[in-house]
């Protein structure tokens, strides 16, 4: 159950943290249609995170952060009262790809393209997970992710094959996120153990499928695969081990501050 707990957090944290990043765009997107679209994608991801956290709390109550008042549901205890090192998301979702100074709309699209291609492949496999909640989340999620991937691919075409400026920015955006790509396919021991029992999917098995999708989209958009080296882990540990980039602490401070300031409050 500790493994399943950890695995639910991995899948849930990926979704929550990216939803948080996408929510930053709200009222800042390049056009209204995109405000709507990015919010929609964020909502889908939030909607995936919540049952995953609830499932995590259910299978392994010992994992609930200590000292959180009982009226706080598991999903909020896990989202708001875990410290940075207990977050299991891949580092791709936490970096600033805009609207902050670390990126722009192109970097946001580049990340969404990579993330949704990968997560779609992952959830497709999880539809047959032996854990019923994972299977259900995955079944719903694949439809959502297919839309997210399509949305990102459409924008990759428009930006890659739009103006000189948009091409230049799309190239830079891909270079921003590509170093985080490798980490997506590195299996954590928890994933490997659960994959054996049919609960999880081994992410290393997704690489060629995802690569193919990305290559296709990039080729159609007139873009090359960036030649950048992967972002190193820290002492062999990365996102799945709770070791994040320096951006993560600021993200959590903003997200968790109110909940932690008033732990007894009821929302």
């Amino acid at each position, binding site marked *: 159950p500790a493994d399943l707990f950890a695995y639910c957090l991995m899948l849930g944290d990926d979704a*929550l943290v990216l939803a*948080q990043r996408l*929510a*930053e765009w*709200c*009222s*800042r*997107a*390049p*056009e*209204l*249609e*995109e*405000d*709507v679209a990015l*919010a*929609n994608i*964020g*909502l889908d991801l*939030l*909607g995936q*995170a*919540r049952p995953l*956290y609830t499932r995590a709390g259910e299978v392994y109550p010992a994992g609930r952060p200590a000292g959180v008042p009982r009226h706080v*549901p598991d*999903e*909020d205890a896990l*989202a*708001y009262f875990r410290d940075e090192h207990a977050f299991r998301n891949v580092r791709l979702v936490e970096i600033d790809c805009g*609207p902050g100074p670390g990126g*722009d*709309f192109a970097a946001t699209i580049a990340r969404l393209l990579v993330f949704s291609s990968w997560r779609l492949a992952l959830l497709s496999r999880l539809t047959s997970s032996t854990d019923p909640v994972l299977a259900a989340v995955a079944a719903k999620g694949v439809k959502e992710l297919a839309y997210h991937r399509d949305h990102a691919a459409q924008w990759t*075409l*428009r*930006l890659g*094959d*739009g*103006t000189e*400026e*948009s091409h230049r*920015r799309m190239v830079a955006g891909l270079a921003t996120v590509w170093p985080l790509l490798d980490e997506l396919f590195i299996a954590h021991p928890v994933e490997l153990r659960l994959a054996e029992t049919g609960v999880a999917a081994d992410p290393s098995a997704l690489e060629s499928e995802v690569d193919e999708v990305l290559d296709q989209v990039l080729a159609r958009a007139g873009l090359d695969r960036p030649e950048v080296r992967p972002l190193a882990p820290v002492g062999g540990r990365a996102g799945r081990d709770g070791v994040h980039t320096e951006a993560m602490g600021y993200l959590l401070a*903003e*997200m968790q*501050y*109110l*909940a932690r300031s*008033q732990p*007894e*409050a*009821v*929302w």
Partner: protein
Amino acid sequence: MSERTTPEGELERQFERTVAAEARIEPRDWMPDGYRRTLIRQIAQHAHSEIIGMQPEGNWITRAPSLRRKAILLAKVQDEAGHGLYLYSATETLGADREELTRNLIEGRQKYSSIFNYPTLTFADVGVIGWLVDGAAICNQVPLCRTSYGPYARAMIRICKEESFHQRQGYELLMTMMRGTEEQRRMVQDATNRWWWPSLMMFGPPDGDSPNTRQSMAWRIKRHTNDELRQKFVDMTVPQAERLGVTLPDPELRWNPERGHYDFGTPDWAEFKRVVSGDGPCNAQRLAHRRKAHEDGAWVREAAAAYAARRSAERKGAA
């Protein structure tokens, strides 16, 4: 124009008959220039209000204190973007250009609802905006569902439905907070104090000072005076405040059994004029935010246009 006097006169009588019969004017129908101009201005201002209105609540999405509230709030602000979209579409049926309207907004030539020039200072503001601001908006907008211009009326039907949903969610958040800690109750009361008077001002100046009301009512664009709507809002809201357990910050507020309505104090109309004319706590901030988003996104819109033009040329070449 003079050569078309007779048919024009006929068209105008036709228009007036349609309006008087409570039927709908549709985009292809003839309509007086003043009607068209009034509608474009009003619908554009309404659209601008939805768009600017994303900011005060959007301010709390990344900090919402529970996942459920985060999802509700993100969905709500997304709906506001959607409302802006329908409304800009409605102006396009009248021949307006969205890019031009957006420029009118960010260059300060067209207004938006002044209520959004106040800051959201705590998470209780999110609830109070739902309760009071959406509540007032609904009072203003429900009659617009029967407004004479078809596309506007249909947009308003959809918008009103979603806004009542938002209003209930806002009220429910406040109810939950009032059942929480002392500090939460303080936050709700404080937010109520800050938003009450600005909400009353949402109905516009007193009828004596509202020059456009008469013509708009004749055209069935508007159906009630500002003061009528304001009274209706107060009558509706006072019992809600009581149920909630907050005090509305108006010592003159009391039930008047003779009128069958609540009496209430006079909003600070001098403040109203200052905020409308640009001097509210957030006017500059709201416009700068919108302007920045628009300007930062220019390269994206240009890329999309260039891409679409190229694809369309290719299709023609292939045909």
